[in-house]
């Protein structure tokens, strides 16, 4: 059973067809890479999957349920979590607050209960504080919990983004260039982290990446797009020798 399925997904901005006829199937537990040259439409696809852009055609299903037309926060509840290409943490909030915000969808107390600190407030706040700290400690960041997110070093900010996305308890995790700006050592660590996340949280991962080492090293399957169209699908080895892909990347 496929976790995510898109059928003929497409979007046009005015006369520009940014993505066209994009159909993929992701199975549960899979680690799929989405690659392509700059401007190919990779992030646009992520934005459609998460409801930021409304596709002009085609449909998206998660677990067999149609999601296009839903609001981003509703899609998060249905199980898609994501990170951003350019880090978009809540810079002036603490590390733990960043994570706690992602847990909000599981909290039910209302503003009134919050103002008067009724028992339910304590129960839920304590619960998510514990959960958030546990999650942070998996990434060795529990000691940074009270720091402002903007004061973290770059590598940790990237980690915190992943951590925050995991806190939304996704079935499908979308990582938008997680290795952007990292050195080879950090990239290697990141690869291990992504593997670890998938096994630990039983989450399916769809990853956009430019770093070929990372992509070839961890993805089981790759989808290559160029000018908004899928030009190749297959295992890393198949992709490496695919003529069209080489052309798209190096020019003909």
């Amino acid at each position, binding site marked *: 059973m496929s976790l995510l399925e898109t059928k003929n997904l497409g979007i046009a901005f005015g006369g520009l067809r940014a993505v066209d006829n994009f159909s993929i199937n992701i199975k549960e537990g899979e680690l799929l890479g989405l690659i392509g040259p700059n401007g190919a439409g990779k992030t646009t696809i992520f934005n459609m999957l*998460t409801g*930021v852009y409304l596709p002009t055609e085609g449909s998206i299903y998660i677990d067999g349920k149609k999601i296009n037309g839903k*609001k*981003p*926060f509703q899609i*998060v*509840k249905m199980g898609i979590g*994501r990170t*951003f290409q350019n880090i*978009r*943490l*809540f*810079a*002036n*909030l603490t590390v733990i*607050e960043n994570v*706690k*915000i*992602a847990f*909000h*969808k599981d*909290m039910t*107390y209302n*503003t009134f209960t*919050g*103002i008067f600190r009724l028992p339910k*407030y304590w129960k839920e*706040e304590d619960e998510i504080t514990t959960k958030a700290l546990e999650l942070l400690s998996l990434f060795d960041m529990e000691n940074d919990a009270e720091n402002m997110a903007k004061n973290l070093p770059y590598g940790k900010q990237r980690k915190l983004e992943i951590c*925050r*996305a995991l*806190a*939304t308890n996704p079935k499908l995790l979308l990582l938008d260039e997680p290795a952007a700006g990292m050195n080879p050592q950090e990239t290697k660590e990141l690869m291990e982290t992504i593997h670890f996340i998938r096994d630990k949280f039983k989450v399916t991962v769809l990853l956009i990446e430019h770093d070929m080492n990372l992509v070839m090293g961890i993805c089981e399957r790759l989808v290559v797009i160029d000018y908004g169209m899928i030009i190749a699908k297959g295992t890393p080895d198949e992709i490496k020798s695919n003529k069209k892909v080489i052309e798209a990347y190096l020019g003909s």
Partner: protein
Amino acid sequence: MTQFINQIINSLNIGSIYALIALGYTMVYGIVRLINFAHGEILMIGAFIGYFLAVTFNMSLIPLLLLSMIGCAIIGMIIDRVAYKPLRKAPRISALITALGMSMLLSNFFRWRFGASDKIMPEINLIGNIPMPNITIITVVITFMCMIGLQYVITRTKTGQAMRAVSEDKGAAQLMGINVDKTISITFAIGSALGAVAGVLYAINYGNLEPYMGTMPGLKAFVAAVLGGIGIIPGAMVGGFAIGIIETFVKGYISSAWANVFVFGILIIVLIVKPTGLFGKNIKEKV
């Protein structure tokens, strides 16, 4: 010396009211980057609700205040839904002009329904049969309670956390499962409820109310919010008291006629010298 102490007390009194209104301006600005010029009219509506409750039901201050807050919170949310929400993606200037229009609509609607003449706010009890003590003390105490409550909501509850997250980055917040529209609604509700408190206290302090009463305090509170750094909550509190002090002392020691000159002069000076306000950080535009 007595005069000096009196001026201090007066400035705390009016400063509290400005601070309460300024909080509404600054909260809304922080979350949707909109100067809600209709906020002064919320103060007027709050005062009118209080007036009608006092006249018809002979209600005492505390229940009257709570009902007026609820009423204004609902009206604030409706204003957002009807006037500002459709313009969320429009250029900011459109929403600003809408806010000015909303302000005129509300005050003129009240003039049309209830007449332009001054209404006298009746004497009311504090709660039950306990008579009202000195109104200045009540004003300052209630204001501080509201501020502590607000600070607590903002820093300690998930509602406040969501508000701060939305004010930092709407896009990222909604992709973490936060309902942005709901969060904005709650912000308008809380800001308007504080405006209602200011309105009721203002009407009791001055003893009367009329449909245009919100305009001047609204504008001065806006100056207060800018002085403190618009979008920054402690800034609005400090700015409100600062404007209260300046206004009272100019009235007391120079001349009543000069008070507004000084207050609005501050707006000009702040905008020239430190546009981000006392508490604001200078953000350099990255190229």
